[in-house]
């Protein structure tokens, strides 16, 4: 047997009008951790879906253990030994943990489930996270623990190859560490890992080999040893190097746009802070620290106890509608489910937060609507066919730009940005940062909620550190900021180390 567990030869995949993969070839070494990187829409997930039988390929061949491999379904691929953790969460809330892990793998006779030994389930679970009980219902678990269950499922399948598509997107530091240990463990057992992530630090730490895709094409496959660092990876991914640097904004300390006084709810404890005019305030914390909750409370999307003053007035925030009239807008963290209406066109999405710019007394001016959309498309450089294109057919970064257009159209005083670049590729990220900086220059203030420290450090004037629903401290952003210190605070360490 060759030492290549998978050989990918000249794979192409065409969707209606889109070449998602174009003549991709590379090999994967048995027992290695093979990382796959590329910008959004580069074709990573598509490749995975072909390997796991979720999509048929248009042309090309895959050799698995030297033999032609053409799985008709994910079940086929699983049986052959290719297990997968897909990008979206794939657990069933109303079933128990053990039922989820066994789902699709039950030993049955005539459809009747045999009382199988769930020993393996116990073992696998205990190895990853012993705090999860097999009898618990998924709906009682946190998002992160649900992910762990999913991972356990892939492990329980005795796979030869395990594919992980952005598994760490919503894991805590601790959990990521444990995941990496597991990956090392698996490798030592001869299991091959295919690992996809946008977090290049993880790639640098984990990879044995790295394959870079760009626009559906194969750019390079290199052993880890031959890669000099992150910059090289980024260069391969986008073709040019981007420098992130922080420029302080002009802040008027006398004007407080927003004041929070002792805001609390289910997840928040006594949150108090001010936002000054012209300032970009950042909130950093790990997943579950309560960033989204603060954003939603200010935006009036969730209930809270305590006071929020907007320009000195108590808003008794009741609804996003009111918040928008007060000049506050939110870029929500889940773009597809909260930010845009995918089935509608860019032109229809753009005025959604403020119809007054395209209507008079409730009557819509379609021409004005088109003009407005085109104006923003040009102003912030959204790549699209024209303003009548459905947002569904845009890439992630461009969808995010549509969300920003919506917010810009309000001429907001305060911009709330929750994970503004989540799932957005490196190139589009820079463009989005540029838009945010420009908006602040033009007179609005912003609060950025992010779990990516570089983003916070590159944008914000002041940084609030969150841990478990509480603000632990505020820092001024300058060259003295120490990342080690920040990390220790947000992971629950002592405040004044």
């Amino acid at each position, binding site marked *: 047997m060759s030492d290549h567990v998978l050989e990918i030869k000249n794979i192409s995949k065409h969707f209606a009008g889109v070449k998602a993969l174009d003549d991709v070839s590379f090999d994967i070494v048995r027992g290695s951790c093979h990382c796959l990187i590329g910008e959004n829409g580069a074709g990573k997930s598509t490749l995975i879906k072909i390997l796991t039988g979720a999509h048929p390929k248009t042309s090309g061949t895959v050799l698995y253990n030297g033999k032609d491999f053409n799985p008709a379904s994910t079940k086929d691929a699983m049986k052959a030994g290719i297990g997968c953790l897909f990008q979206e969460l*794939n657990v069933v*809330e109303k079933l128990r943990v053990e039922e989820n892990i066994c789902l699709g793998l*039950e030993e049955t006779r005539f459809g009747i489930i045999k009382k199988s030994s769930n020993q393996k389930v116990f073992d696998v679970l205990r190895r990853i996270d012993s705090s999860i009980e097999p009898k618990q219902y998924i709906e009682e678990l946190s998002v992160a623990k649900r992910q762990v269950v999913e991972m356990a499922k892939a492990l329980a399948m005795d796979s030869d190859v395990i594919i992980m598509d952005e598994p760490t997107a919503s894991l805590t530091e601790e959990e990521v560490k444990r995941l990496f240990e597991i990956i090392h463990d698996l490798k030592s057992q001869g299991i091959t890992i295919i690992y996809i992530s946008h977090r290049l630090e993880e790639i640098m730490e984990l990879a044995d080999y790295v394959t870079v895709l760009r626009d559906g094409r194969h750019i390079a496959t290199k052993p880890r040893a031959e890669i000099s660092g992150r910059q090289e990876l980024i260069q391969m991914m986008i073709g040019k190097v981007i420098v992130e640097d922080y420029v302080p904004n002009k802040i008027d300390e006398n004007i407080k746009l927003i004041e929070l006084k002792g805001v609390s709810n289910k997840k928040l404890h006594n949150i108090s802070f001010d936002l000054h005019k012209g300032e970009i305030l950042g909130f950093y914390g790990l997943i579950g620290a309560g960033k989204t909750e603060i954003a939603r409370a200010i935006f009036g999307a969730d209930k809270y106890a305590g006071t929020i003053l907007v320009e000195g007035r108590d808003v008794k925030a009741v609804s996003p509608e009111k918040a928008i009239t007060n000049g506050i807008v939110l870029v929500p963290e889940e773009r597809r489910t909260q930010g845009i209406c995918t089935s509608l066109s860019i032109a229809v999405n753009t005025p959604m937060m403020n119809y007054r710019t395209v209507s008079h007394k409730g009557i819509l001016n379609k021409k004005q609507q088109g003009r407005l959309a085109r104006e923003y498309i040009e102003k912030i450089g959204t790549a699209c066919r024209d303003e009548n294109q459905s947002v569904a057919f845009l890439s992630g970064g461009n969808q995010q730009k549509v969300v920003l257009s919506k917010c810009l159209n309000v001429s907001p005083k305060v911009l709330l940005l929750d994970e503004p670049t989540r799932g957005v590729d490196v190139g589009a990220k820079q463009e989005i940062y540029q838009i945010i900086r420009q908006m602040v220059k033009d007179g609005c203030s912003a609060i950025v909620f992010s779990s990516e420290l570089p983003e916070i450090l590159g944008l914000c004037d002041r940084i609030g550190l969150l841990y478990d629903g509480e603000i632990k401290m505020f820092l001024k952003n300058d060259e003295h900021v120490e990342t080690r210190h920040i990390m220790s605070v947000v992971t629950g360490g002592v405040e004044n180390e």
Partner: protein
Amino acid sequence: MRNNKLSRSTQKNLVLFVILLVLCAFFYSQNNRFITVYNLTNMVRQSLPNFILGCGMTFVIASGAIDLSVGGTMALSAMLYGYLCIWGINPWLAVVIVAGFGVVVGIFNTVIMEKLQIPAIMATLATWIITAGMAMSVCKAIPITGPELKPITVLNSIKFGKIPLALPICIVVIAVFLFLEKKTILGKYAIAIGGNDAAAHFSGINVTKMRACFFVLTGVLAGLSGVWQVARLGSADPTIGTGMEFKVVAACILGGVNIKGGEGTVSGVMIGTAILIVLTNGMQMMDIGSFYQDIATGLVLLASVLINSDSVGELMGKKAAA
């Protein structure tokens, strides 16, 4: 916490069961003939189709679909059965053939849903229009009858002491479906598909095939319900099953099945069915006109979704806390 987690659906069922008992007690206090062996077994005999279709519909709705075609399938099955008997086919063999026809309808539903990508509600609505129309047009809407139908009508009059055959049939069907729900992949997969069909798909479950199973279940049960109605009525009437789809769906919702899928138990649906039936019968026992029964059904349905809804639950939880 610990007891809580075991029993969210069991708790709901208990509450429903208590409501059922309270209703029964109330109607008994109004007319003590409400609780007699005759009246209680009668309710089962009259509503056998509601009970057994409820069993199948639980799986369909829990899996995130809906089957609005059951009424039409019942009618067409009844007509098919009538003609088979008149053509001289053995009445028991005819039952099997009708069950087979139910399988065909189930597969037809699945094909238009899954292959043609038509939402369940529209697909099964179309099937309902077609089957109900076909049932009416084959006989020009005139019920068919004849001595050939005699053997099946025996089913309606068989009694063990005071217990009519319908009761054991009902119990057996419910037992079978409880078994299917708890002990076979059908129950788990229905919840899995309804709760998260992508997860089910990526777990290697053939979603289309499972959906076909669920629709075949309701198809077969609708076919058999059609035969049962022929046995009850002594004639194959093409209006059999009119409005059945909404009655069954209403019972499912009342029984705690989530219309969006991912949640629901056969036992809950059986209690829900029983509540609706007790309500109708009890109101008749009190000599309340049938027009008021529609209103009562609507109000009960509304109350049950309100009680099951999260936002109302939150509201009440908050009040309890305050």
